[in-house]
Every structure is written in structure tokens, then in C-alpha cells.
């Protein structure tokens, strides 16, 4: 197992031994598994991966995927094939706050490209990169269902809509001063619908 390759990341047996959900996260995972009939626990995979990503630093390492496989009693490859299919799972380390700017039609019609350029300049990174301090990663996303409140960006569970440059400044300042990992599973989302 120690030489197994997951994407570009290598599996580390020593690290794997350290991966373990907190009691709180384990409770959430058990509740998710209970939603499915006996023997169908694989169905819990997508939601459990979200919990794992939030719990283990915002990305899914080969060790974390192996751990999730052991909990759901499935093969590690079944976890990897799902994690690599869906866009919300990160297979490499990311910044604490991943900014995902929607770029599809309605957002483009309302200036999404300018928002991307503005953030690139402000953070001095390109799309797909992470700031040197590890605070922000910038991504573009396909339609996030916010077309009537375009342009928009998502960070963790929060939707930030009707963006202007001023608004982007404020949003980024807030996240920076907060300084914490932002995840899709966060309960303190700030949607602005």
C-alpha cells in the first residue's frame, strides 16, 4: 500500500495512522450512514467526503480517502473515483478560503470576467493558484444557480452575490481577518439572497 499512487499524491502509511475523525465529526458521519438501508452505506460517500474535507484541512489526501473507505467498508478506489469525478472535492492542498467565481452565461453577462481579473490583481495570483500565505485560492466555477443575483462567488457554504469591486474588497478583508478554514459544511454561512 505504501507506494500506491492517488493522482499526483503519494500514499503515506505513517500519515494514514494519524487520520481519525473527531468524536463530533464521527457522530455526523454515523447519522449520515443511518439515512440509508443496511448494506447500502456506500451511498453515504458523497456527504461523508464533504465532512472529511472540512475535517482534514480542506482537501482529500490519499490517506483520508483510505480512511473514508475503511469507515464505509468499500475499496479505496471507489472513494477515489468519486472524489476525482465531482468538482467540489479537492485532491491537492488549497488555501483556507477557496474563492469560486461563477463564469457561466448570466454571470458573464453581468461582468464575472471583471471580478476574476480584479481578484487576480488584488491577490496577485492567477485562477488555479493559492496565495503565498495560504489564505486564498482562486477558482472559476460553472453555473452556481445565482443567475438572478449575478455576478457572484462562493466561498465554502457562503454565497456572495450582486458583486461589485467594493463588495469583493469587503468580503476578502473579512475572510482574511477571520483567518479560518472555510468549508461547504460550515453552519455560519452568509448568503445574501
Amino acid at each position: 500500500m505504501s507506494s500506491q499512487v492517488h493522482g499526483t499524491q503519494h500514499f503515506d502509511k505513517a500519515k494514514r495512522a494519524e487520520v481519525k475523525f473527531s468524536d463530533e465529526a464521527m457522530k455526523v458521519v454515523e447519522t449520515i450512514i443511518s439515512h440509508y438501508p443496511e448494506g447500502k452505506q456506500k451511498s453515504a460517500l458523497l456527504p461523508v467526503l464533504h465532512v472529511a474535507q472540512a475535517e482534514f484541512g480542506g482537501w482529500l489526501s490519499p490517506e483520508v480517502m483510505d480512511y473514508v473507505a475503511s469507515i464505509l467498508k468499500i475499496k479505496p478506489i471507489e472513494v477515489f473515483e468519486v472524489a476525482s469525478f465531482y468538482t467540489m472535492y479537492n485532491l491537492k492542498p488549497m488555501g483556507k478560503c477557496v474563492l469560486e467565481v461563477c463564469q457561466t452565461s448570466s454571470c458573464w453577462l453581468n461582468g464575472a470576467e471583471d471580478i476574476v481579473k480584479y481578484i487576480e490583481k488584488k491577490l496577485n495570483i492567477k485562477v488555479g493558484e493559492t496565495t503565498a500565505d495560504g489564505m486564498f485560492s482562486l477558482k472559476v466555477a460553472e453555473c452556481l444557480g445565482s443567475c438572478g443575483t449575478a455576478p457572484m462567488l462562493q466561498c465554502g457554504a457562503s454565497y456572495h452575490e450582486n458583486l461589485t469591486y467594493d463588495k469583493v474588497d469587503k468580503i476578502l478583508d473579512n475572510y482574511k481577518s477571520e483567518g479560518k478554514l472555510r468549508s461547504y459544511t460550515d453552519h455560519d454561512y452568509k448568503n445574501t439572497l
Partner: protein
Amino acid sequence: MGKKLLIHNDKVANIHTLEVYRAHGGYASVEKALKTMTPDQVTDEVKKSGLRGRGGAGFPTGMKWSFLAKPEGVNRYLVCNADESEPGTFKDRYLMEKIPHALIEGMITSSYALGAKSSYIYIRGEYFYVARIVEKAIAEAYAAGWLGKNILGTDFSHDCYVQVGGGAYICGEETALLESLEGKRGNPRIKPPFPAVAGLWGCPTVVNNVETIAAVVPIVNDGGEEYAKIGIGKSTGTKLISASGHINKPGVYEIELGIPVEEFIYSDEYCGGIRNGKKMKAVVAGGSSVPILPTELILKTAKGEPRLMTYESLSDGGFATGTMLGSGGFIVMDEDTSIVKNLFTFSRFYHHESCGQCSPCREGTGWMEKILKKFLNGTANESDVNLLWDIQSKIEGKTICPLGEAAAWPVAAAIRHFKQEFLDVARSKKFVDVSHYNRLNKINA
């Protein structure tokens, strides 16, 4: 003011709570169905209503329900498709966020009709916060006895769960959704068998859109015939329209099917006309997959009749001069919009979202994106327009699921109605984006 059946209470304070929802007549359909109707009677009302699937395909809901296999001793499932991802569509998000109990009430009443002991609401992962709202509402419903064992003291017991996705447009296709719900990649299944026979974990399953399930509530409350009085012909009832783009009042509107498209775009009750006094250039009427139409064809059919917001009127003329109601994702573009670049955003989208199972879609969507990129780079030739046409024609009808068509139709329609614009860009060897709508600078100036 048109009649509203789904989001008439959206502005009521705290309507997302069970207490307020109940005070406004919530859960009456559960009481009526469980205490006074048989499951088949509920299905009959849905058939009488003429309700059609609100996710985009427009298939009659009552008929879909009647296909559900009911073998003895096998669980049946209702799955709600809340994987709203069609560009231009955000109505289900609005409904779930504002009035989550409307969906849960519909889930219970529909599950009673279908004999489903459990149901799942599959919500796209990006809507995680919406899933939180729905989960909270479900917990309230359990605490008040609307979910769980022996609801209202009857024999009917029901459990309802939320599952979040992982970010994949394809999971809005019902068999891909079921794969995803089983913890797999969202690769659509070959049909038959249809989910009504072998769906979730191989069991008979009905998959319905959020809005479809919510519409079951007024249908059961008022009767299917009453619902069918709204609308025109086979387009009965009300429809949520997500309006976006260059309009004065973007947002979610509930319309009576049958109002003129012109009224929807220009009246203050709805979109309020085009922003900044600009003229309208084109409209995508039902989400990114449906054919784009230029102003003259969206307002009037080729026969010169006013175009109406119905399944039939919008598709009048076929794809040559018509479009589709689809999901109701209504994107309006002003006169400065580049159709070429808008199409590029669509093709990039479909390339990104192709699951990769079928070669025509996996390869074709990438080719179309690449060629459109050439137009934006100023390196396209006139012959590339024909090449684009050729590629799209070889995707349609040649894939397991309709993502192939969804990717091909917008390309075909853009060339069909705006060919000159493509040729102009190719000839001039440079792309000038005058459509760059700079609202952002204006606000900051």
C-alpha cells in the same frame, strides 16, 4: 396579478418555520390525502391536473407516477431532484430556501400516493446552505409528527432524508442522480430499465423536480381540475421562471402559464424591461440547453402570433423558429451582447460537465469549446462555422443521456439565427467584446 400557488407566501416573515407555514394553511394536503383519499385518488388528481415535470423535460407527472412498478415486498422510493444546475435556473433554490416546508409537504403527500416509505431529496452540493435549511425543516416536521411513524395516526409512515451532491451538472439527469445517490460517479444509466422499474438500489423509483413535488400540494388541496383551469391547453397551472441577464428586475417569478412572452419581459410585474434603456437582442427561454431566439422570434412566432409562455407556444415552429420552455431559466441579452461569446460560455460549460461516458459528447463538447475559443482569439476561419455545425449535428441523438443534445442545441441555434455574427468575427480576425457589460465600474464610479 396572476394566480400564485407555490411562492404566494414567500414574503411572509418566518415562513420557513413550521409554525408560520402551518398558520398559513401548510400541511393541509397531507391531512386531506392521508385521512380522506386513497393513494390512487391522489395520483388521479395529479393526472387530472395535467401537471408536467418542471425540471425541464415537461413529461406528464401523473403518467410518470402510474409507470411505477409495485411488486410485493419491494421498497419503492421517491427521489426529489434538487440538483438544479441548468445555467439560468435558480427557482428551486429560491423555493427551498424561502419555503422549505412546501417541498417537504409535497414529498409526504406524493410519497403517500406512490406508497414510498422513504424518500430522498438530492440537493446539489454547492447549495449546502440550502440543504441545511431543508434539513432543519425536516427536523421540525419529525418533531411535529408530519414525518416518522404512523403520521396523523394512520398506517402511513414515512422517512425523508437530504443528500448533498459533489458538484456535477450531469447528476440532474435522473439516472446519473441515482448513481450519485448510491455513492458513485454520476454516469447516466442506459434505459431501459427506467427508474420506475429499477431505480435507487434497483428498486422502483420516481424522480421528480422540486417544483413538481411542491405543485402536488395545491393540486391535492384544490383538486386537479381546479389546477387545470389555469393555463392553456396542455400547459396547465403555474410555473416558476428564473429571470436573469440584462433586465431591470431579475429574480424568480411565478407565472400563470399562458401569459405573453412580451408581457413577461416588459411589464413591471415581472422583468421590468431591458436595463439601461437598451434594446433586446436575444433570449434563452428555458435554460442554457434550449435554442436561443432573436427578439423577433421570441416575441412572435414565425406565423406572426404573439409567443406565449407555454410549452406549446414556445416550441411553435420547431427548432427552425421556436425553442422550449425547459426549466424556465429565462436569460435576456441586450443589443450589445456577443452571441459568439455567450455561446462560448455555454460550450465551455458543457465540456466541463460532460461525464465522459460517450465519445460524441466527451470529444465533441471539447472540440466545440476549442473552435469557439478560436473566434475569441481572432484565429477562426469562415469554414469554422460549418465545422461547428457539423460537430453539433454529430452529437445529437448519439449519446446515452440528453447532455449531448443539451450541448448541441445551443450551438445549432446560435448559428441558425446569428450566422452572420460568426462570419463577421471570423472575417475581421479579431474579436471586440462590446458586450462587456460594465455594471461593476458604474457602481464604483
